[in-house]
């Protein structure tokens, strides 16, 4: 297509902006097709919904701690003194047309935004999509998740209701627990004693300007890198590490992604319309003298809440300094350590495996049993802390003792991840074995044959070549060796301890994984089965209508 073929409006813009050439290249960009590649889109679309509804809310929300007397239409709080922030949140909920709906959509979108980012992260993790060259994009994604959580928490604090105030009070306690600098930081953030009358206006600016701006910038980089790296794909016939097989952006993904955006918006709007979220009018205005049962943060802070809840109350003091280990450990040491591990995982794995190649084909989780096991351990750890954050509701709703739940969790957070790791890894290895079985001996037909000499056997039918290709399209990975103790000149090799550790970890990663069968093994197995008559019914009619583009 030459330039003159553009329809007039496009030509007009192309002459001035050059969009024709950009569009021609990028609209044809090929993306592979799989449902799990759309999880990140949920996050992107909820972010757009958050911006749209958030702008609406800023029109009426008053980020001020000035004391006012409520005279709105919610009669149960009428005449009460409260901050302007809380009063305006009540106004949005009861006196502004569509305000409550917008508030609820905003809040549900926030819940979904972070949940979708997390589900997306899990997909990337379990399929190994974070490997070279995408490690930095993993870090960017992680940063967005982190910022999203902070953003959500600050937003939760803005209405200045009893629950958000209690949440801030707990956060302030955590800040104060940091040795030496704690009190200074608390004074700095709240502009004096808690709660003061500064934080709502400060948090507001951070919530509507700073963090959304950062996230928006990172989204751009994140998506740019997806385009630049090209999307990963699952292995299959015709799909290699050097190409991308899928459909072009125009018209297929424009339709699919565009449609999906409306679905996400629709579901969020439905949730906002039908499911009540954050009923601030029930909580009442924040008053440091009040607290309510069921004081919990939104779900993404729940694991932090849980880690604090299940920590035994230990504190020590020396030289006049009190160290609150009951906060330092669960709030200031464990969570940062956990998120740092998550953020740096691609680099850690790359170092352990010594793999410096580019990877554009995704792993099936079973083919990396140790990584999959680690993922399961992380999920278990996180999930148990989550349970800890709701220990009171678990206790009341399942008729348990609060103390038993807490004590169970104190042990389970250590044992559960180990157990989950071990079980998941064994399951992955078993699945690998099952795959090998399929490759070597084919499918079980369920037909039992009795041989002339009386022996019974089950007939197997070989799997298709396509499936065999898919199952075997992976590397044969062997653990790293420590390397010789001395080099050619008899000089002791440097960093030997580190190399030893690395080969130990590499052993841990790969030693138990099942390797795919060799060509000889497959041939031998097939010759065996050819003795018996086989059932061949898979036709060769399968066609692929996908477009292939070279990865260059």
């Amino acid at each position, binding site marked *: 297509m030459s330039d003159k073929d553009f329809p007039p409006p496009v030509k007009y813009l192309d002459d001035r902006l050059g969009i024709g050439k950009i569009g021609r290249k990028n609209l044809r960009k090929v993306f592979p097709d799989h449902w799990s590649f759309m999880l990140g889109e949920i996050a992107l679309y909820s972010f757009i919904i958050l911006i749209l509804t958030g702008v609406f809310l800023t029109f009426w929300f008053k980020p001020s701690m000035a004391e006012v007397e409520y005279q709105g239409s919610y009669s*149960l709080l*009428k005449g009460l003194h409260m901050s302007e922030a809380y009063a305006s949140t009540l106004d949005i909920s009861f006196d502004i047309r569509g305000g409550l709906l917008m508030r609820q959509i905003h809040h549900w979108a926030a819940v979904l935004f972070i949940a979708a980012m997390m589900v997306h992260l899990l997909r990337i993790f379990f399929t190994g999509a974070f490997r070279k060259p995408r490690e930095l994009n993993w870090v960017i994604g992680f940063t967005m998740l982190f910022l999203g959580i902070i953003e959500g928490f600050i937003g939760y604090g803005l209405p200045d209701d009893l629950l958000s105030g209690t949440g801030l009070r707990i956060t302030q306690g955590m800040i104060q627990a940091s040795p030496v600098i704690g009190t200074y930081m608390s004074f700095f953030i709240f502009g004096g004693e808690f709660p003061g009358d500064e934080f709502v206006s400060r948090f507001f600016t951070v919530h509507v300007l700073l963090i959304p701006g950062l996230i928006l910038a990172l989204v751009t980089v994140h998506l740019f890198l997806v385009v630049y790296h090209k999307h990963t794909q699952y292995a299959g016939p015709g799909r290699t590490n050097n190409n991308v097989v899928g459909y072009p952006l125009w018209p297929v993904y424009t339709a699919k992604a565009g449609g999906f955006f409306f679905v996400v918006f629709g579901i969020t709007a439905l949730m906002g319309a039908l499911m009540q979220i954050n009923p601030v009018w029930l909580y009442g205005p924040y008053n440091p003298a009040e607290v309510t049962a069921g004081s919990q943060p939104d779900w993404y802070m729940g694991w932090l809440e849980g880690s604090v809840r299940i920590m035994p109350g230990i504190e020590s003091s020396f030289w006049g300094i009190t160290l609150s280990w009951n906060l330092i450990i669960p709030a200031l040491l464990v969570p940062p350590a956990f998120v740092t591990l998550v953020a740096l995982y691609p680099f850690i794995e790359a170092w352990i495996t010594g793999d410096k190649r580019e990877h554009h084909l995704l792993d099936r989780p079973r083919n990396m049993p140790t990584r999959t096991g680690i993922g399961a351990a992380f999920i278990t750890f996180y999930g148990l802390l989550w349970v800890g954050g709701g220990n009171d509701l678990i206790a009341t709703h399942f008729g348990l003792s609060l103390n038993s739940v807490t004590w169970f969790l104190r042990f389970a957070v250590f044992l559960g991840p180990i157990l989950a790791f071990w079980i998941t890894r064994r399951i992955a290895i078993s699945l690998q074995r099952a795959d090998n079985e399929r490759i070597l001996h084919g499918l079980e037909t369920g037909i039992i044959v009795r041989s002339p000499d009386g022996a019974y056997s089950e007939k197997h039918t070989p799997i298709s070549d396509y499936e065999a290709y898919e199952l075997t399209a992976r590397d044969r990975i062997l653990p790293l060796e420590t390397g010789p103790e001395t080099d050619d000149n008899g000089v002791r090799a440097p960093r030997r301890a580190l190399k030893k550790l690395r080969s130990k970890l590499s052993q841990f990663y790969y030693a138990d994984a099942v390797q795919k069968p060799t060509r000889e093994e497959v041939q031998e197995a097939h010759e065996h089965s050819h003795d018996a008559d086989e059932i061949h019914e898979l036709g060769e009619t399968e066609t692929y209508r996908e477009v292939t583009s070279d990865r260059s």
Partner: protein
Amino acid sequence: MSEKRLSLSPARFLSARRRHRSAGLVVLLFGLLAVGSAYAAFAPDNAVADNSAQSQQIEEGKKLFAVGCSSCHGLNAEGATNGEGRLAGPSLIGVGAAAVDFQVGTGRMPAVQPGAQIPEKPPTYTQAEIEALAAYVASLAPGPAVPAQESYDISKATDEQVTRGGELFRTNCTACHNFAGRGGALPNGRYAPSLMGVTERHIYEAMLTGPQQMPVFSDQVLQPQDKRDIIAYLKALETQKDPGGFGLGRLGPVSEGLWGWLVGIGLLVGVAVWIGAKGVKAKGAKAE
């Protein structure tokens, strides 16, 4: 000396005789006589005079108590142990009629089995029986009486009073009972029950007597008007519709998060799977 003797006034007479050998005895007799006649004059002679409905009710309550309550609380409501040295039921002397009306009226008593906390259940006794039990327990020693109808009558509560009740509720009650009165957990298997569907009288009595884990909010701590305002707020909460849709149990962010994941992410991932499976690929004969 002699003229002094002659002009002896009564005061002097007593003063002079006060060291007499039998003076102490005389004073004691006088004292006993005075106390005795004063008692005869002022003491209530209910045992004799009041053989009417009330004493019958107490008598009936005593019988019911002996059958249904005494195995844990002792034959005379003095409290009893379970044979292993642990307290089976506390002494009920001085708990008052209000405590009985609450415990038996909400079905908590008679308890099915001892435990961390005795749960609410449909009442076992009829209202008349409960009144008899209450009268019997009240007859043992003074205690808070069943509140009169007008002390928990909230039909005339103004908006201002309801708001005030909300403030009192948030200050005194939400820490255990949750912001919407939906209940919450307490240590070692105990819990603050939900306040939804509890009658005005029972809420009032609970505050007055502090059943089980609950602290007592006597009329000096929360005055009758305060109690009435709190009840008015609770009833307003109970009848209030959730303006935002389904209330999700009014339990706070935990249930919101659960619903967000189950419904929200569940549906959206479902749609993603659907879009992934549908569309262009469905036209090709892809047998995977």
